């Protein structure tokens, strides 16, 4: 299967540590490809190899059907990237930063074009301010403008929400969706914020200790039959009592302090709700928990340092 | 017999006195010739050969005023003139009348036979201890003068004459004198070592003699030279 990115048997050995171990994956056109893994799993190393910041120890990378090693310049002309927090030249203005990178990419660096770009990210009125005066959110937006100044086909985002406030995180999420759905760009995003990946990714890769654990479309990977449901009730002990004496006992995971967890098929939620209300349980909320998080934690079971549920 | 001995002794004494007198007369004649020049301004080219100096030939102007003022100036640049160059003036040598002239064996300088006369100052405190003059008697010109001093060792002045011979002014004068060894204060500045200097120094015999040679182009004689020039 040929995609925008084809990685086969990618390996990176750092002295005593194998950070990436025979990793293979494919990113298709228009994918929002989520890269998931715990800290130290090899996400950043892999992304840096895609961006030629790190030399692979083995394996092959093809982007746009071209070998990365031999067609580096051609490929990078069509790639934009934000690597963790956006780093800028603090002593230059926002405009000058953007101009600098436009020139490095060999694209139109006319004032009109650059001001349009800054307008798009909401920085036009601060174009001439030194970057050191920008807030973190503004720096992020400038970083986005820099990553997109040359209108790349492929956008790679490594932990793009690091250090952002909730508004910034929401903005980033909207950007990713905009890039994918409206501008038809292919986006690769790595993050440890599973909720963010879940909301934007169409396909994903989970890696652990540099090895691929699983790859595929998000909705295919998450089994609706194992949906975690959280129940809050006015009288928790009454609710627990009812469940333990009903058919729902088989699905009970654990009663906790202020809610009860069950694992049922997603489509059984209405039935459960009905039975609880009928039995006189005062249901405050009945919610399906973060299924991706659950999936991820199950997949990487054994690496958990904190129990699934807090007591 | 007695008479012959006394007469012989008397004749010897007279002849000795007469020879010494002749030497003094010659010196005085030369001095008179030299003293006809009260002052001059001369242009010339100066070459310096001192162990620790490397300087280019320079166009200089030499000012002289009787009896012993001498100044060498480089109007277009700098001239590093040896101390004691004032002794390049012959009249300086003989400014003091009070000396004894003692003749010595004639010598040859080039093809010229010169009378050698030693001048001994009568003043015991004089800086000059001995001057030896090599005089071309026919032209009444001093071709060479070697002077020994108390403080500054021995220096020598050699002259060649041409069109200004009638004034006893040389076309070329070479002044040889003693120098002290030179060393840059340590640590002042780093020198560039091109790798060749060391071997040179080992072979060279260190000499403490310097030489100044002036080739005179022309003289303006007895037209007056202000004292301010010598300050």
């Amino acid at each position, binding site marked *: 299967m040929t995609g925008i990115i084809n990685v086969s048997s990618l390996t990176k050995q750092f002295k005593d540590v194998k950070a990436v171990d025979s990793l293979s994956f494919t990113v298709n056109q228009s994918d929002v490809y989520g890269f998931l893994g715990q800290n130290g799993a090899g996400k950043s190393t892999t992304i840096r190899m895609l961006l030629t910041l790190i*030399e692979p120890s083995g394996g092959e990378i093809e982007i746009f059907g071209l070998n990365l090693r031999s067609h580096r310049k051609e490929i990078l002309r069509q790639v934009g990237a934000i690597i963790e927090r956006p780093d800028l030249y603090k*002593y230059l203005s926002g405009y000058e930063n953007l101009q600098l990178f436009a020139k490095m990419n060999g694209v139109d660096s006319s004032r009109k074009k650059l001001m349009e770009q800054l307008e798009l990210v909401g920085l036009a009125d601060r174009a001439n301010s030194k970057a050191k005066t920008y807030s973190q959110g503004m720096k992020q937006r400038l970083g986005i403008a820099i990553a997109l100044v040359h209108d790349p086909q492929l956008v790679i985002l490594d932990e793009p929400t690091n250090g952002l406030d909730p508004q910034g995180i929401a903005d980033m999420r909207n950007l990713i969706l905009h890039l994918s759905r409206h501008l038809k760009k292919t986006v690769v995003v790595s993050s440890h914020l599973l909720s963010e990946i879940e909301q934007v990714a169409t396909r994903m890769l989970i890696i652990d200790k540099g090895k691929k654990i699983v790859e595929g479309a998000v909705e295919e990977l998450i089994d609706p039959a194992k949906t975690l449901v959280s129940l809050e009730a006015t009288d928790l002990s009454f609710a627990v009592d009812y469940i333990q004496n009903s058919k729902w006992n088989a699905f009970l995971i654990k009663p906790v302090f202020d809610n009860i967890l069950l694992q049922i098929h997603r489509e059984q939620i209405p039935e459960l709700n009905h039975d609880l209300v009928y039995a006189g349980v005062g249901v405050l909320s009945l919610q399906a928990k973060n299924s991706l998080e659950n999936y991820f934690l199950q997949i990487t079971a054994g690496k958990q340092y904190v129990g699934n549920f807090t007591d | 017999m007695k008479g012959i001995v006394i007469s012989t002794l008397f004749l010897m004494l007279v002849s000795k006195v007469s020879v010494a007198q002749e030497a003094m007369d010659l010196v005085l004649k030369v001095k008179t010739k030299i003293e006809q020049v009260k002052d001059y301004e001369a242009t010339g080219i100066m070459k310096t050969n001192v162990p*620790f100096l490397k300087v*280019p030939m320079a166009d200089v102007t030499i000012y002289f005023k009787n009896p012993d003022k001498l100044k060498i100036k480089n109007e277009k640049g700098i001239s590093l003139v040896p101390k004691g160059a004032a002794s390049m003036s012959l009249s300086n040598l003989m400014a003091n009348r009070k000396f004894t002239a003692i003749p010595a064996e004639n010598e040859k300088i080039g093809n010229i036979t010169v009378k050698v006369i030693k001048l001994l100052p009568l003043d015991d405190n004089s800086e000059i201890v001995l001057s030896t003059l090599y005089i071309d008697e026919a032209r009444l010109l001093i071709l060479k003068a070697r002077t020994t001093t108390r403080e500054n060792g021995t220096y020598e002045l050699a002259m060649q004459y041409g069109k200004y011979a009638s004034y006893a002014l040389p076309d070329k004068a070479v002044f040889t004198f003693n120098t002290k060894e030179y060393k840059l204060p340590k640590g002042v500045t780093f020198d560039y070592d091109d790798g060749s200097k060391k071997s040179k120094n080992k072979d060279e015999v260190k000499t403490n003699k310097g030489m100044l040679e002036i080739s005179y182009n022309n003289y303006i004689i007895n037209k007056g030279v202000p004292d301010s020039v010598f300050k």
Partner: protein
Amino acid sequence: MLAILRIELLKIFRRPRTYISFAAIAAMVGIVQLALKVDGISYLEFLMGGMKDSIEIPYQVVLNGYLVCFIILNLLLIHVPLLVALVAGDSIAGEANMGTLRLLLTRPVSRTQFMLTKFAACVIYTVMLLIWMALLSLLVSILLFGTNDMIITRNDVVEQIQRSDILWRYIAAFAYAAVALTTVAALAFLLSIFADNSIGPIVSTISIVIVFTILSEMQIPIYDDTVKPWLFTSHMLAWKGFFYSKSNGEGEAIKGTIENLPAIMRSLGVLIGYIVLFVGSAILIFRKKDILS
């Protein structure tokens, strides 16, 4: 590549710290000129004390603009390389520290081209610093002290150069100094690739220059024949050789000549060799380097 070079020069000259170097040079040169204007005669008496018993020295005319410039260049032997290292040592390490290095290296520019452009910008900065220094130390000195022949004091000989024979020597000396300082820049540039902070490469460069300069100047036989000829600092001083004239063997300096031009050319070759070595190594290592900053 020209466009990227312009970008690199923009980065250097938009940074306030760059102007500290130019201000520092102005201050240092100004201080020396002021000192010499106030009491240069005393300094000359000290410098030329070794010959004052034998030679009449006209100090007033000896202290002229050409000599003042020479004194300034001698005094700033260590200082100017420091200022060069400030920018060259920051060239890669500074980008790594700011985090911009990873951004730059994901652009469609080869690492070799990137490094060459960076180094070219360092060289241009170095040359401009030197031109600035030349203007201040030569032109301003001439304005303040006038011109005349120049008297140079060496370890065991004093040389005189005629006024009309000086300017071309200064041009040659400054051109040579540009190569010498570029060698320091190349060293700082090489060290810059190993650090994420520019302090390390800057301090390391200066330490190396100081230690090597001491080794170059110490008269210890064990070093003289073995180590000294290979230290680049031994050859950095060769700019002075342009002020040493040939002699005719009778103590007379021959106008328009250089005492040992082949030696200067050899030194120049050594410096160029070091530049190629340092920059070549920097490029080779950097091409394979993993950017983890």
